[in-house]
């Protein structure tokens, strides 16, 4: 398999001996939409910044599109939208794109046309010549995404791309990202919005305390808690005795308007329905319960001995 990003034993230790990245091995398949997840302080942004040489790595190696990440030319064909970017307020949306396009090696007519194309794609064409100072957070974010897409990069790092964007804007950005993936661009998506990652990513990795706990296809990572069948019941209120009877069938968890029953033997589902009928509880729906990415994530993090935030003090 070809990888757009590969790291081997990559480490980062900040001043004060805080180890933000412990020897870290990560592989991002080329052409995938890769979601990097982790609690605050897990080292997600440090990893992205280290890969782009914004932060200097302390050890190990990495490759971007097959090139050694320490050299400037490794960033050719790579786009980046940082979290909480602050583009110079004296620039307009167009000049921001032209400036960063120039830095990416574009110039002349090709740059001019590309800037217009990307701004139009993100519905920012009409605002292109207004100063950034007049933009809302969502508009600035769209311009940020536009500059990241200039020059048709093969790999784009997006750090919290929908942060501060309204629902319509989010939908737009998701659409653009899916389109990019469709064209074979690798998207490295860094977000704490797990539902969003679940919607657009096909590969994920979960980080905690500078380590990658798990990486792989989305469904594989979500399957970490599917060690039995889970069924969601939508019912009228349950009394204590019914609840006790259900507990004998499997693990019961509260869920809005009902509960989720996790059983090791599928026959227990029928038995549970019998229990409910016997108790006179109205059953409105019984459906397979799909584990969300958020649940898988919380499950994995809760398994860790240290659930605190931040890097590791060496």
């Amino acid at each position, binding site marked *: 398999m070809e990888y757009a990003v590969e790291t081997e034993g990559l480490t980062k230790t900040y001043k004060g001996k805080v180890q933000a990245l412990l020897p870290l091995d990560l592989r991002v398949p080329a052409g995938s939409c890769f979601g990097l997840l982790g609690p605050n302080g897990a080292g997600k942004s440090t990893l992205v*910044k280290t890969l782009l040489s*914004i932060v200097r790595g302390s050890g190990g190696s990495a490759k971007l599109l097959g090139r050694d990440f320490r050299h400037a030319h490794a960033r*050719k064909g790579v786009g*980046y939208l940082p979290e909480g970017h*602050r583009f110079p307020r*004296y*620039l307009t949306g167009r000049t921001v794109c032209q400036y960063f396009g*120039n*830095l990416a090696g574009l110039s002349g007519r090709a740059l001019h046309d590309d800037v217009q194309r990307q701004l139009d794609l993100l519905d920012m064409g009409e605002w292109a010549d207004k100063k950034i100072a007049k933009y809302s957070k969502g508009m600035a974010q769209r311009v940020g995404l536009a500059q990241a897409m200039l020059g048709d990069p093969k790999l784009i790092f997006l750090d919290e791309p929908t942060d501060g964007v309204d629902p319509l804007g989010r939908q737009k950005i998701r659409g653009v990202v899916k389109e990019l993936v469709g064209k074979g661009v690798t998207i490295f998506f860094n977000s704490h919005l797990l539902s969003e990652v679940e919607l657009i990513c096909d590969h994920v990795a979960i980080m905690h305390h500078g380590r990658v706990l798990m990486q792989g296809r989305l469904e594989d990572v979500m399957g970490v808690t599917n060690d039995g069948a889970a069924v969601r019941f939508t019912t009228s209120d349950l009394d204590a005795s019914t609840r006790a009877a259900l507990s004998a069938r499997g693990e019961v968890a509260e869920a809005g308007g009902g509960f989720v029953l996790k059983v090791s033997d599928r026959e227990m589902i029928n038995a549970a329905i019998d229990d409910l009928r016997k108790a006179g509880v109205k059953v409105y729906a019984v459906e397979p319960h799909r584990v969300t990415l958020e649940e898988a994530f919380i499950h994995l993090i809760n398994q860790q001995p240290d659930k605190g935030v931040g890097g590791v003090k060496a």
Partner: protein
Amino acid sequence: MSAFVAIVADTWRQSVQQIVFVIMIGLVLLVTSLFIVLPQSKTDAEGRQVMAMMSDSQPGATYERLWDGLYTELVNRQIGTNARTEEKRKEAVKWEDALRLAQKDFADAQRAGAPPEQLDEHVREIEATKAEVVAANERLERERRILREEAGVHVEDRKAKLTPLEQGVQFWLDGAIVALYWASLLGFIAAGAGFFPGLLQSGSVDVVLSRPISRLQVYAGKYIGGIILYSIVMTVAVLVLYFAIGLRLGVWHGRLFLALPIMVFSAALLYAIVALIGIRTRSTSFAMGLGYFFLVVVDWALALIQAGALAEFSGLAWLRPVADVVRVVFPNFRTMQFWSSAVALGVPIFEWPLFVTAFAWFLICLAWGYHLFHKADY
């Protein structure tokens, strides 16, 4: 290449947004305008064309005399008056110190109730030392007189080639160079202090560094952008001054342009210091504040120490070797202003050791600034 040009261009865009840059332009414009508007060509009582101020009702030889004084001073410096008299000056100072010591010994002996013959011995020593002091000072004066005469030949030679109006205008334009030098440097500190901290703002520097350009290109682009900006402003100011004075007074003093390289070098050194502070602290206010402190306070103090004035004034002998060390260790903007002024008047002075010191500082500050920028995490 386009990436490098983009960084340079961004520095210009950044500067025109800053009020401090507008103030710098305003300062340079004000100085240039004043030096264009105030002088006039008038006829004096002897029927000669001379330079005078607008308000002068009886124009005379004021500006010729001023030119004479300034030119003589510059020629003295050029032929190395200071260096050639330095040895004799040191000798005179040595005898003055010896005299002070002898007088102290006499006072101590008197207080201790020494016998009269011992006191007489001290008095004889004092008298002999006094004679040495007088002789050393005479030798120093003789040397200075010789050099003044030597310089006088140069001055008279030059004077013979210039009309009274040209002398007056050249003195006036020399003043313009001095004023432009300081006004532009003071303005440039304010304008340039924000260039690097602005670049290093979190959320802005990230995208720049994520592009396929090296940090060296980013650093050089930002630095060179600032210097090109200063050079353009000063070139325009000198061009305007040259043509305006030429058209108004009929004196075309092309040597004015020779001051530009020294002004640009001074600005480059100052900007390297300010950039280093800006990169280290990531604060515009700090870079500006320390830049002004260096130029206004430290540079003045260094100039006083280097000239040996503090040692002379305080009478502290140990300050003299300190002055010698300071002279070769620290750059001095007052000295560089003097060079620019001298070359504009047609007396090129180039003191190699001082230039080497300034150039070494320039390289060290640039390299140190780059080192900090290169290794930092953003």
